[in-house]
């Protein structure tokens, strides 16, 4: 799989609900349509929060990976 290049990265490591989602929605607002936001998280709640938020908001979840308890999401802004 080709590497996804993020426009910007948001690291929410260590933070828990509601902060990863609050910071993610804030970060995406600062981007232009088509830009890609990389979100790094350790809150396991984001496993469902981020995909469902993408579905609701029209953003595209390009990738979701988990390694050593670190979750990494790439989201293309609608």
């Amino acid at each position: 799989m080709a590497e996804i290049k993020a426009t910007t990265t948001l690291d929410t490591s260590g933070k828990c609900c509601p902060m990863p989602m609050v910071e993610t929605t804030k970060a995406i607002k600062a981007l232009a349509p088509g830009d890609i936001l990389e979100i790094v998280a350790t809150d396991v709640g984001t496993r469902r929060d981020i995909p469902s938020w993408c579905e609701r908001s029209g953003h595209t979840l390009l990738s979701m990976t988990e390694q050593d308890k670190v979750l990494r999401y790439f989201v293309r802004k609608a």
Partner: protein
Amino acid sequence: MKSMAIVVRDDAYDKILTPLAFAYLAAAEGTKVDMLFVNWAVKALTKEGAESLKVDGRHAEQDAWVRERVAKAGLPPDVYDIIKALKDTGNVNFYACSLAGAIFGVDDKNLVPEAEGIVGASWFLNEKAAKAEHYQYF
């Protein structure tokens, strides 16, 4: 979700975190949130009252530990700072119940500036709760 109404009754520090966190999540996504503080929780809408909130009941001894964990989670550990953060989203309105205000000593003079004011429960229930897409009670 376009709108959400929340009634907050419980004023224990740990228990008030949930409605505030839910409001924060919804507001961050653009949902308009109206919160009515009733009973003892009305005091959370005063600076002094917000500062005095404590973990109570069988978890009372863990107050400091809870605050530490809240800060680690990324939320401000002080309830008034959370209220300010919610207000900064531009999507949250805080209301104090007039009956609760009269009983528990909250009026226009000690209400935090982030609050919209003191309102009757009838107005809130009919104009906010009944018209909201989603309604919660804590």
